[in-house]
């Protein structure tokens, strides 16, 4: 195999790609390609190590996450309450609307009578 062919294989060598005999044979003889493989291996190990390197999250994030059970249960309670009492709420809103309309009508009528 030629160096150019081997170089094409190296990014995946030993991980997602070809580790066949021709490549291994070339690597055992070619110092440049071996050095190139060492660079990729170094890169792979260093990338793996990044997994244990954590950034510091915003200060408030922990409390936002820790309170998820409380927040979701409160939201669920509210949803359940509204669903169970849907008819009562609808009746209340209807009564309020009718009352407001009646009051407005009465006020308008009274104004006209006073003017006459």
């Amino acid at each position: 195999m030629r160096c150019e062919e081997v170089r094409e294989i190296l990014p995946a060598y030993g991980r997602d790609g070809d580790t066949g005999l021709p490549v291994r044979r070339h690597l055992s003889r070619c110092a440049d390609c071996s050095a190139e493989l060492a660079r990729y291996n170094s890169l792979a190990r260093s990338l793996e190590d990044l997994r244990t390197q954590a950034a510091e999250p915003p200060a408030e994030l922990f409390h936002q996450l820790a309170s998820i059970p409380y927040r979701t249960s409160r939201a669920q309670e509210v949803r359940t309450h509204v669903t169970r009492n849907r008819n009562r709420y609808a009746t209340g809103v209807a009564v309020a609307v009718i009352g407001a309309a009646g009051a407005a009508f009465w006020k308008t009528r009274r104004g006209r009578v006073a003017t006459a």
Partner: protein
Amino acid sequence: MRRPSVHREGASSDRIPAELVERCKDGDERAWGDLVERTYRDVYTLCLRISGDPHDAAEATQDAYLKAWRGLKSFRGDALFETWLYRVASNSALSKHRGRRRRQSQESGMEDEALVQLPASGSVEATAGARIEVQRLEAALATLPEQHRIVVVLRDVYGMSIQEVADHLGISETAAKVRVHRARKRLRDLVFEGEAG
């Protein structure tokens, strides 16, 4: 550019006990707090590496834990809890990232801002075969085009299989393999710039 400020090591080496997960499934809020404490820095970091934006990363982390809390019952323990949580988190981060990309054109300086939040120090040997300095690697990752950065983060940092990467991104396995391959070559050029090859 400001120097990255925070560095924390070794968080991922702690396994989450199955008993703790079971207590969370039973609705134990204290156990949930413990679970969050043990995992949220790593989950946030994963989201930050995918999205490249601290604000999006925080939102994606919240989405991920909300989904995790709601979906805990479906976690059967076939895989490690952390692996399951990472999958949920990377999905959240990817959808958040896609949403942002739709909303706005690329803002200059976004990568630098993300880099500021990432760890500062680490191993310092940089010759072929040795470990690469963390800051140098993070800087190179941040310079990669986002398509390349995301596949390298999923495959090489978090150890997802090519199949999982393909599923996450909604592309074929072959396309995922090609993308990972190109991303590694590009990253190699960035990290070992000026060296033979």
